[in-house]
């Protein structure tokens, strides 16, 4: 649900990074945070356990500049990926405008990817959203590892609706901004239609 403030001339949109545990959602946000100029970003908040696993969410506000006189702000959130945090994941999807699914490219994580997409679909439905229509991008992360599944095979298994798909190495930033731009563009195009 985009928040359009005519008084302060701002558009605020919410993007959620979804995916199985340890797939690199927080790493995506950390890379974006590190590479964005100080005037374009707010403070990054990580509600994590002592072992640095996301407990509730990470949050990063990004100011992308202005469009037709309106300051465009994107609020980026991650969800906790571990299976047992489902209640928290559901809460974070509230009012979402676009979703990035970060898939772990390692062979042994394919099952977890599939389960997590199913979980995303179900949790979106509970908020009245539909994965088939919501702005959505798919990222194959950790492409630098040796035990990865071929990108074509991952696409066949994980692609939902021919969404834009990106190969990434979030630790070094490969594909991180391309993924973000893709979903942000879809959100703005959606705004234009309404």
């Amino acid at each position: 649900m985009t928040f359009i403030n005519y008084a302060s001339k701002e558009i605020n949109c919410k993007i959620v990074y979804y995916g199985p545990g340890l797939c690199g959602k927080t790493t995506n946000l950390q890379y974006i945070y590190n590479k964005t100029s100080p005037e374009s970003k707010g403070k990054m908040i990580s509600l994590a356990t002592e072992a640095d696993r996301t407990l509730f969410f990470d949050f990063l506000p990004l100011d992308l500049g202005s469009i037709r006189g309106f300051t465009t702000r994107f609020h980026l959130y991650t969800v906790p990926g571990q299976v047992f945090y489902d209640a928290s994941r559901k809460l974070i999807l509230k009012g979402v405008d676009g979703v990035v699914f970060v898939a772990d490219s390692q062979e042994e994580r394919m099952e977890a990817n599939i389960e997590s997409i199913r979980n995303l679909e179900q949790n979106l439905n509970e908020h009245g959203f539909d994965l088939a229509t919501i702005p959505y991008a798919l990222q194959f992360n950790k492409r630098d590892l040796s035990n990865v599944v071929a990108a074509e095979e991952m696409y066949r298994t994980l692609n939902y609706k021919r969404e834009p798909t990106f190969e990434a190495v979030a630790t070094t930033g490969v594909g991180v901004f391309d993924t973000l731009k893709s979903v942000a563009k879809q959100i703005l195009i959606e705004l234009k239609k309404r």
Partner: protein
Amino acid sequence: MCAADFVLYEEEFRHLEDALRRLRQEANAKAVFLIDKNGQQIAAAGEIEHFDTTSLASLTAGNVAATDGLAKLIGEREFSVLFHEGQQDHIHISIVAKRAILVVIFDDRSSLGLVRLRVKRANGELEKVFEVMLQKGEKEAQGSTHASPFAEITDDDIDALFGE
């Protein structure tokens, strides 16, 4: 997407800000914030320059969402008031018109009783403004009375945003 956009126009914004300013003064509070349940700040009054308002909005919404989840687990519809007591500063959080969160930050110059009393009074006023906003939103949905500035967005505008 299913949910309608949340649109705030100048007039309602001014009314909300007036109500918040009054509440801050009457409750002797440091700052008062009105936040959308999704974590976006709607309006604020008081010593807001001392706070990271964006983080405050996001964390408050997360807090309220988690507490809502807890309420449902024990069969309650919601916990409409939350209170966090610190050594010097305290936070009073309440739900307004089902969709917004009112946050009052105060110290020992005020008291929980006074804040609760003033918040209750302000709630009615804020609810009325939200009602007007809702009606305006419905009117917009039926037949646009306000030209959307985004209808004219071009691909070039969007690309320019990303510095391409």
